[in-house]
């Protein structure tokens, strides 16, 4: 705005600060453009790739990633993170599978596994909220504790035999017309999270604690209450994601979902949620999860496996860093 020439009008339209404001205020717009570009790129690289089957498989993977990224979105909004989601989700899928030949069957399995996931989250929440240990440490440790217990359970249940229940397989890999069944899980979860963040007092508290814990405290917010509930909720969400993933892959393993851990953080960051807290939302995260899924698919066309990971990781870091830089200061 300093120049007084006739080019001001055009410059303003193209100026860095305009783009910065656009990215900050409407992150969904550039993210959606990026997603569309990636899909077009995929179709150019391998004509005919983008067909209903490919869309179904992409949406399937994005659904699991999206739910896990929901855990990260909620915790990151408060300035935290949940690194236990990989092991908690794997545990949930595995425990449910071990109940298939037990009295109570799969419904009992789901109840036990989600209860265990909630309990793990609750303990993390107590560590973060009441004992004020950094969430990175607490959830990393809790993830290992859950992994350990899952292994113990594995040894206990090796005689009884296990298998992913048919009902879970139907959710994870069946289709309803062209649409994958796991949308039946993902869409309600997404709606709940979107409304939770936008329209409830609890959602406001997540943003408040992440933006300025001192201000929240001075306004009468007891942040430990918010945090204990938050990590328990994150545990349950991770458990749900684990069930969907075990149905999708028809596998029950205590490390099944672990590879999704870092992409779940990346999806939330790319979706515009600040790791420092107070800024972001779930709609961006959903698009972020789709972008990562499509990106992985594009890279699998052009690169051999080891290089794919190098490039995938680099792109994630690059996009996240660009985004953080653009939105950092007003």
């Amino acid at each position, binding site marked *: 705005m300093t120049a007084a020439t006739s080019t001001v009008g055009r410059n303003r339209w193209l100026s860095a600060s305009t783009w910065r404001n656009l990215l900050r*205020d409407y992150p969904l717009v550039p993210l959606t453009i990026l997603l569309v570009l990636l899909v077009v790129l995929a179709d150019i690289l391998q004509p005919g790739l983008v067909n209903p089957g490919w869309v179904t498989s992409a949406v399937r993977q994005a659904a699991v990633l999206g739910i896990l990224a929901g855990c990260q979105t909620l915790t990151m909004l408060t300035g935290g993170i949940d690194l236990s989601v990989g092991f908690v989700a794997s545990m949930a899928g595995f425990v449910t599978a071990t109940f298939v030949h037990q009295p109570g069957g799969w419904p009992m399995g789901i109840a036990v596994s989600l209860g265990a996931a909630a309990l793990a989250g609750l303990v993390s929440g107590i560590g973060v909220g009441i004992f004020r240990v950094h969430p990175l440490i607490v959830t990393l440790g809790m993830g290992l504790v859950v992994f350990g217990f899952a292994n113990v359970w594995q040894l206990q249940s090796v005689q009884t035999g296990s298998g992913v229940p048919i009902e879970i397989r139907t959710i994870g890999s069946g289709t309803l017309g062209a649409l994958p069944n796991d949308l039946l899980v993902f869409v309600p979860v997404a709606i709940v999270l979107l409304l939770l963040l936008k*329209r*409830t*007092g*609890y959602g*406001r*508290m997540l*943003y*408040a604690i992440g*933006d*300025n814990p*001192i*201000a*929240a*405290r*001075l*306004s*009468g*917010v*007891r942040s430990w*209450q918010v945090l204990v509930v938050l990590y328990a909720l994150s545990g349950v969400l991770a458990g749900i994601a684990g069930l969907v993933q075990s149905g999708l892959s028809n596998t029950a393993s205590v490390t099944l979902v672990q590879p999704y851990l870092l992409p779940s953080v990346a999806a939330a960051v790319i979706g515009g949620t600040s790791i420092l807290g*107070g*800024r972001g939302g779930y709609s961006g995260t959903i698009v972020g999860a789709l972008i990562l899924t499509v990106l992985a698919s594009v890279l699998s066309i052009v690169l051999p496996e080891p290089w794919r990971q190098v490039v995938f990781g680099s792109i994630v870091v690059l996009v996240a860093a660009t985004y953080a830089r653009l939105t950092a200061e*007003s």
Partner: protein
Amino acid sequence: MTLTTSTDMLLEATDVSKTYGAVVALHNASLAVRPGEVHALVGANGAGKSTLVKILTGAVTPDSGRIIVRGRERKSHSPAEARRNGLVSVYQEPAVIPDLDIRENLRLTHTPVEPFRHWMNELGVENLNLSSLARRLPLATLRIVDLAKALAIEPDVLLLDEITAALPANLTERVLQNVQQLGEDRSVIFISHRLIEIAAVCDRATVLRNGETVGVVDVAAGSEDKIVNLMLGEGATALAQREGGHVTAAARSHQTPRLSLLGMSARRRLHNASFELYPGEVLGVVALEGQGQDELFDVLAGSERPSSGSLLVDGKPATFHHPADAIRIGMVYVAADRAEALLMQRSVRENISLPFSARIPQWGWINLGREKHKVDEAVNTLQIDARAGAEVRRLSGGNQQKVTIARWVASGVKTMLCFDPTRGIDIRTKNQIYVLLRDLAAAGAAVLLYTSELKEIQLACDRVIVIFGGEVVAEMPAAQASEAALLRAAHNLKPDSALPEEVAAAATGDMSAVQAAIDSQSTTVSQR
């Protein structure tokens, strides 16, 4: 100490300016220190003293101005560089690393040990074991260690910032004695809120007001009044009196106070404070920096628990474990630091409605219509310009401050605790805030208003209390609270009294009288 008429200054700072955003902290301030003199730097809160000190010691870079030490211009970009340039400072808080022993602390600052020992003895702390951990030593000893450390490297200019605060009487005396006898070659810049000490040890005083040097006073008998008048400036007498609405003392006697504090102490600074706050009044609080007012507000807001004393709210004892406890009974706190009170990345609406959702029963569905109604009402009441309301950090400082107040106006308030709410905001917004506080009081709320701007007392308050050394030392109706009266009370001087005789004598150079003066002053302080 006799002074020559020499004009070669040891240290000369000229035309020093510094602005922080829209706030002018220093505007062409100057300071000239003669060799061998003890030079006081005085000014009311916010006059620019601390900014000038930070510039001299290299902690802050000035926007313009020159600093000349021994005839050469010096530019210090860090405290370490200022040290090499011959300017060493000793602050209120001890500058030692608690987990190192004294010898290691000395090595850290390249302080020679023998001179250090010599000065420790001179300052009255003998036989200090250099191998003892700094954290094991009493605070008073650490302050002496700091001073000896500074003296040991033989600085040209020694800057003492409130060095005597919280020193026991005998050590204060030794310190002041040594400060006075530093010799012809060395100068001291002495900062203290205690005008009596300044009268006793200083040769000259530079007075700052609103970021400008308004006068340099030769300290002699009676110069205390001159200093106070310079700090006040002209026009201090011409103040518009506010009309009506006062709660008379007679009316108060029939009421239960909203708040009564009895012998409240907290942390190190608040000692035995007692006062009452009645419904329908705005009670002003005046204090120099660091007299316990921060602790007082922290206790009342529920952020800090008192170490002793009791608090009655509407006649019933109250204990707060968390700000939520205070808020529940209608006691709300407006912080001075807006960065402490606001969610900078969130909207005006979310900031104002923040307390609505604080408690678990309120975590559910938000009735957006009702919320909007309440928020809009508060925005209108405070005339907040919320055009840039998507993120509070894009608002002006005045509008941000209004948001912090609007939050409590919207959720209903019985007792409002305002800590310097008008700091650094424009005059129009200030007036709006005064009107709002008056309106709140008229509607039956009780308002406690700490302010660093003395003229606000008569503009907004019914009554005022003055805190010194952690205790309420004066109380007066706002009508009598002229800036001069408040400033005297804030320095714990009796109203309209001349200097105590012994201090007046001290200023003329009689050393035994100096000690008597210091003793009497110190005893009064320590008796508290």
